[in-house]
């Protein structure tokens, strides 16, 4: 029959995927019809997230939706995936950085070198703490065992946070079995959507990043085998997915802060939180010192954030 079949694995579990990826894939399959069908698998379903990159590079999995950090891509840009502390404030920052400030080109070069096609980057939600016990000061972070992204965890450990990495699907259970004290992985929309709001009690309104950055990737050979119109269709559906998340998270974060009943909001005063922001700038320089590519990306972040500050309201307040 000649229907092209792809297996794609996302790093999200089914409940989250229902919003952040299912609609895009359904749309793709509907339009591509007999020419191509993508079968979607969820977090750890076919291969564990730790093996995801290798599986895609080798062709065991054809395409992947993930951030660079979680799937431990062997590239110099990996640390910037997921939540690079304080690199962006709003979810629109991410596409601007990629499309207008040159990150797309850097990513393309890095991934081509390891046999993987970087198709499209997009933004998700901000990174907040959801915990069993309240966090009202930096001291409250001390000793908390928290599920978070590898790089965010590295950064947060200087405040006494103990980062723990477990399979995504096991997080809710791990909070209940005492393996975790909390989660620093998402905004409040996701906490409610995936059930973490049911097992934690408090939501910290300060965030360490305004938007997650992650991408769609494919095995290089599989991508090159696609006719150009299907490549275009795939890109269009990625954009649809990015767009859906833009409004779904933006609206969701606000309405759950206002109307949500499962979690109590707490805040760390701005003056105290400024210590974390300062530490982030130091962290940026540490990362930049690791390689020329990393230095280039950090330079772009600095330039972008300086431009936004200069642009003033509504881009940056104060």
């Amino acid at each position: 029959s000649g229907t092209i079949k792809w297996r794609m694995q996302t790093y999200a579990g089914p409940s989250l995927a229902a919003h952040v990826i299912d609609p895009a894939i359904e749309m793709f399959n509907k339009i591509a019809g007999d020419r191509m069908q993508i079968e979607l698998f969820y977090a750890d379903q076919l291969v564990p997230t730790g093996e995801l990159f290798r599986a895609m590079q080798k062709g065991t999995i054809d395409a992947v939706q993930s951030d660079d950090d979680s799937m431990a891509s062997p590239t110099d840009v990996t640390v910037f995936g997921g939540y690079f502390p304080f690199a962006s404030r709003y979810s629109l920052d991410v596409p601007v950085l990629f499309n207008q400030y040159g990150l797309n080109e850097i990513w393309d070069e890095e991934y081509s070198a390891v046999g993987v096609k970087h198709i499209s980057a997009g933004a998700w939600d901000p990174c907040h703490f959801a915990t069993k016990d309240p966090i009202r000061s930096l001291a409250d972070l001390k000793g908390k065992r928290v599920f978070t992204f590898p790089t965010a965890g590295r950064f947060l450990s200087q405040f006494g946070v103990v980062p723990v990495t477990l399979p995504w699907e096991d997080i809710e259970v791990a909070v209940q079995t005492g393996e975790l004290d909390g989660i620093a992985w998402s905004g409040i929309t996701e906490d409610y959507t995936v059930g973490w709001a049911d097992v934690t009690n408090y939501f910290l309104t300060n965030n360490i990043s305004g938007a997650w950055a992650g991408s769609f990737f494919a095995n290089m050979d599989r991508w090159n085998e696609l006719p150009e119109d299907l490549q275009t269709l795939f890109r269009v559906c990625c954009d649809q997915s990015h767009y859906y998340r833009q409004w779904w998270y933006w609206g969701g974060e606000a309405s759950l802060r206002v109307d949500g009943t499962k979690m109590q909001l707490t805040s760390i005063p701005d003056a105290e939180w400024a210590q974390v922001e300062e530490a982030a700038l130091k962290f940026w320089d540490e990362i930049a010192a690791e390689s020329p590519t990393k230095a280039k990306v950090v330079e772009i972040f600095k330039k972008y954030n300086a431009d936004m500050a200069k642009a003033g309201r509504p881009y940056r307040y104060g």
Partner: protein
Amino acid sequence: MSQEYIALFMFGAMMVMLLTGQRVFGAIGAVGAIAALALWGTGGQDIPFSAAMKLMKWYPLLTLPMFIFMGYVLSESRLADDLYRMFHVWMGPVNGGLAIGTIALMVLVSAMNGLSVAGMAIGATIALPELLRRGYDKTMVTGVIQAGSSLGILVPPSVVLVLYAMIARQPVGQLWLAGVVPGLMMAALFICYIWLRCRLQPELGPAMKDAGDVPRAEKMRLLWAGALPLMIFAAMMVPFVNGWTSLVESSAIGALAALVASVLKRRMTWAIFETCTKQTLAISCMFMWIILAALGFGAVFDGLGAVKAIDNLFTDQLGLDPWVILILMQLSFILMGTFLDDTAMLVIVAPLYVPLVKVLGFDLIWYGVLYTITTQIAYMTPPFGYNLFLMRAMAPPEVSLNDIYRSIIPFVGIMVVALALIMAFPQIALWLPQTIYGQ
């Protein structure tokens, strides 16, 4: 090949391989590997290994060796002897009292170990000879021990529920609590039955005449023995339920507590210690290799679309009522329980059924309890049952296989009643976890 044929081929090939008597993990793993190489396309050969990485990340598996070790310390060091003596002197004077005491013993033993085999071993070595010597009816006695040992995986800690929790992605703590009331309810039903039956037919379980001779001080000392398992249970469960320690940490504390108890009671020798350690490796490896093979099999089965085919069959094509589907699934477990061991059945079949149960709108914690009881029924029912053969192997020669077959009938009846009650009133299982975890 269509998805339906792939499902049929993989499942059929696995059954044939199992029937040859090859080691379960080899049979399952080979079928998964062959299908991966033949049908997956690029990179399929990596799936069996990536299952090993997946297994490594399943942290609750760390509890397996701990609970297995606990069970061995308990049965090998004969820690349960005093417990049995306690029930002996306290319950002996009643008609059927020793049998009732054996069920109570099984409840306590269940609270200290995660598998039903340990209960079976303790029941068969300690209780069985004594009951027969005291003139209890042999078909009554073997039934009591088999039924009692089935509580092992229902009362926490439970290895089967840990595995189920990982597959269904449900909290272990809640599942364990969900097993408590049904486990105690089943024990109570067993006890009612024994009491009633022996009241009507005292010759089945004659009261002991000499039990009154034991001095009161000795009776009180023996009562103290009953506190031991409760203390081990508490050392493990109190920090866990309070959130001071995590599940896997608690399992290590439980294993250590059992070891310390056996040393303090002067029941631990180097030879016993070595046997426990060696047997723990043997049984843990058995479990882990089956899980490894089944995870690989499952990923291939899923990636080739066979899971979707099964979903289709149950939900779309047959178009059955959710309850009918549920009962069909339970029946298929009883059928498969005649030849698959519980780990293999859980790791292969549960991943197919659990998503379906969820789609049908049933509670997965509740289903975990149903599943556990159903497999226990499966292992007790003739003609083939895991527990039946274990019983046969452990029982003295005067107990025939026929006796064992007949002995389980009333007890299986009670378990079916318990199952029906829990299906009709899910709160029997769900009340405790909801009360404790509900905020």
